């Protein structure tokens, strides 16, 4: 029975995609592109001051969606820390890592942290932004966690950072709501010179907040999964 059901479902999917294949999905000329994308592209540089149109869509035009995304990530991290409750035991002695591995990871961590910060700060100019930057910081934290015997992981500090970051995201949105624009996440700062680091109003601020939140959250997820009993 199980095999029959799986076979039918898979055959249905194969048939469906076979009908799609053949250039139905991708417009090959600029004539039949979506009007929403074209509209956003033509006004985003003047309205938001951000050189990267994807960033302006993520942070401003669909900013409410990003708030929901951050909330979903927070709920996932909450669920993981509920499942992986730490007993507060002394962590087991790590296998003796080689000296080169230890030193290398200690040298690598500041570089990864710096690179994550760079990705976060340049989210409105180049590809990147808060989400990949935060993930890079969390990966650097994992490198340290993997090799050194004693990690002073301050769980309270991480939760405080995460909560403050989430609060300031909503706070920035509410300031926009009270300001002259009168809508949630409306830009209230001067736009500055186009294509420089200090430009694009509140976009770098929101991405910095998102980066801190994602970095703290994913670091505690990795820590909870690795160290709990």
């Amino acid at each position, binding site marked *: 029975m199980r095999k029959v059901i799986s076979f039918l479902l898979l055959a249905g999917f194969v048939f469906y*995609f076979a009908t799609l294949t053949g250039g139905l999905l991708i417009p090959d000329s*600029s004539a039949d592109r979506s009007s929403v*994308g074209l509209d956003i592209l033509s006004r985003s540089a003047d309205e938001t001051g951000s*050189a990267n149109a*994807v960033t302006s*869509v*993520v942070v401003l035009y669909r900013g409410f969606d990003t708030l929901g995304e951050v909330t979903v990530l927070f709920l996932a991290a909450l669920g993981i820390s509920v499942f992986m409750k730490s007993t507060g035991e002394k962590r087991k002695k790590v296998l003796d890592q080689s000296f080169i591995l230890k030193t290398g990871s200690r040298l690598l961590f500041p570089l990864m942290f710096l690179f994550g910060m760079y990705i976060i700060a340049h989210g409105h100019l180049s590809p990147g932004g808060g989400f990949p930057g935060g993930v890079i910081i969390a990966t650097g934290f994992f490198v340290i966690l993997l090799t050194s015997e004693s990690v002073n992981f301050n769980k309270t500090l991480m939760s405080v950072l995460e909560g403050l970051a989430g609060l300031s995201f909503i706070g920035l949105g509410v300031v926009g709501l009270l300001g002259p624009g009168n809508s949630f996440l409306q830009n209230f700062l001067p736009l500055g010179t186009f294509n420089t680091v200090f430009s694009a109003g509140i976009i770098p601020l929101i991405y910095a907040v998102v980066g801190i939140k994602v970095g703290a959250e994913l670091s505690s997820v990795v820590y909870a999964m690795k160290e709990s009993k």
Partner: protein
Amino acid sequence: MNGVLSISTVLNFGSAGLIVLGLYIVFTQKNLIKMVIGIDIAETGVNVLLVSTGYIKGNTAPIFSKAGLQVSSMVDPVPQALVLTSIVIGFGVSALALAMIIKLYEKTGTLDTSKIRGLKW
């Protein structure tokens, strides 16, 4: 355009292949971690499909990095923003599923779905 092979055909074929492979893994494998891998692969295929809907042949990325870039020669930014959200949420889903699997393993001592009562089908 040379013959049947175009960029859209290749991308559709690849994403459809990934989705079908992922679903096949979820349906046929008995190991719980391998089922999560299947979900991950199917999700990657969906992301490729979504991004490829916004692609226009020969156009540049939607970034005004230098002056003189025309709006009409850029790809659609909206599907890319959607997929950005989708990737992050996909990671959250996988991590939560794996945490549940670790707890289940501590309770039952096995990862085989045919040996756990209530997970058989």
